[in-house]
């Protein structure tokens, strides 16, 4: 089981990000992470929230182009080389990463890494085998 993430397609115009965050705030949705992929003409806003089912309903109702997908989430120690070590393991396991981003964890001395990979189950298995903490519930991402 992987963490669920919502991606929203946004045009490169002023106010589009705040429209979404404002909408979620109005409905009392708490964001766990947020990341934006930007290009010249458009952006993709990727968010993880506490209540993903409601968040998706709200975004759908507002008529946005969006999708919900499962992404791999794991914890790395907040120290030099902490992430590099894990990525080397994934590389050796031939895992292909489409994109990834980091979120500072509430827990001291660690960060969460969120990644879209070609095969969630296999990636999680490799991480678990190497003793790396895998987060599988959105609620555990804190």
């Amino acid at each position, binding site marked *: 089981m992987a963490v669920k993430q919502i*991606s929203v*397609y946004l*045009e490169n115009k002023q106010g589009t990000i705040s429209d979404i965050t404002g909408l979620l705030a109005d409905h009392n949705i708490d964001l766990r992470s947020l990341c934006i*992929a930007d*290009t010249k*003409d458009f952006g993709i806003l990727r968010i993880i929230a506490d209540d993903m089912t409601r968040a998706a309903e709200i975004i759908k109702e507002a*008529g946005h*182009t969006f*999708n919900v997908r499962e992404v791999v989430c794991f914890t790395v120690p907040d120290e030099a080389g902490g992430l590099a070590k894990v990525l080397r393991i994934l590389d050796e396991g031939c895992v292909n990463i489409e994109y990834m981003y980091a979120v500072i964890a509430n827990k001291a001395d660690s960060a969460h890494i969120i990644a*879209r990979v070609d095969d969630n189950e296999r990636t999680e298995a490799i991480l678990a085998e190497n003793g790396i903490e895998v987060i599988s519930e959105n609620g555990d991402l804190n």
Partner: protein
Amino acid sequence: MAPEQIRALQSEKLVKQVKHVYENVPFYKALMDEKGVGPEDIRGVDDLKKLPFISKAELRETYPYGMLAVPLSECVRIQSTSGTTGKRVIAYYNQHDIDLWEDCCARAIVAAGGTKDDVVQVCYGYGLFTGGAGLHGGSHKVGSLTLPMSSGNTERQIQFMMDLGATILCCTPSYAAYIGETLKEQGYGPDDIPLKSGIFGAEPWTQEIRQNIEELMGIKAFDIYGLTEMSGPGVAFECEEQKGMHINEDHFIAEIIDPNTGEVLPDGTKGELVFTCLDKEAFPLLRYRTRDICVLNREKCSCGRTHVRMSKPMGRSDDMMIIRGVNVFPSQIEAVLIKEGFSCNYQIELSRVNNSDTFDVYVEFLPEQFDDTVKNVAQKEKGLQAALRSMLGISPAVHLVAPKTIARSEGKAVRVIDKRKLHD
């Protein structure tokens, strides 16, 4: 009526009409004299091709009274075009012409299943635009209860529709889709909506839009065709077969011509539609060039009507854009969007930078097309660009925009924004 009988009737009416116009419209008399053709040369439909054409240019030239064929004191109404393509055209009607027009619209309503027991909601614009007045009058003639809503105020449209149990909706297809989407957003499914059919026209629409409207509201969507110059809507309308629109041939003769040479083309050939009014008295145009490109079909229709059917217009001979020297029709772009699985809500923007044309196509990005990567969006844009290039021969810049960001007007959809200022 059998086709031969229709033709005989048309011939008889045409002879009288040409005489009427020749004697009462000095402008057209001059055109005929210049061509060396007199009323005595027109003995029937076969002689129609001898007559000179009228186009929008002649209507502008004779604005406002030059095409009147009866004294102004006999006229009871004017209607007018929107004037978006230049100077407005003003059409005049005496009472006979109004009755004739409303009869044509009544036929369209009956073909869409209308009877005196129906409730017809007319949300075409009222006023100078012929849409509201035409269907309103037609609905009266049928004896249906007529709701004269005019366009806009969608909340009120829906309230009247639900409270009074409207059974037939008349408006532009883009407004019908908008009402349908609003109904859906408010939680009304096809079974909750009292409508059984709709009569939609005044702008081009595709089979996909038809299907969308039919599914949203659980209705049968009928096409209607007309133009202010001929009276308004009701010149042709769809029957239950939904396979082309029957032209009211007892009142109008339809011809298909080559838009470049003016030569009459055989039935079944694509070309520009030309109409001749047979019965209208006040504003009787002969061989009026509609600029609509379509095909006539004389095959027997299983609905039993013997009037010729015209296809949905496939474009307009003056809708044609010339971009970097290439002829482009919006309908071609629509065809590619449908084929590639894109939304039909699009807008074309033309501009000119350093004396060369820029060509941008904006299309609403559908949720089902969206994966969550930049690569996916870029692939969709490139794919659509390639498909458009292979259809058109030139390559537009494609922009995927968020849903509902392309303006859906409550009147006609604006598909092309040309900022090139090619004409003064």
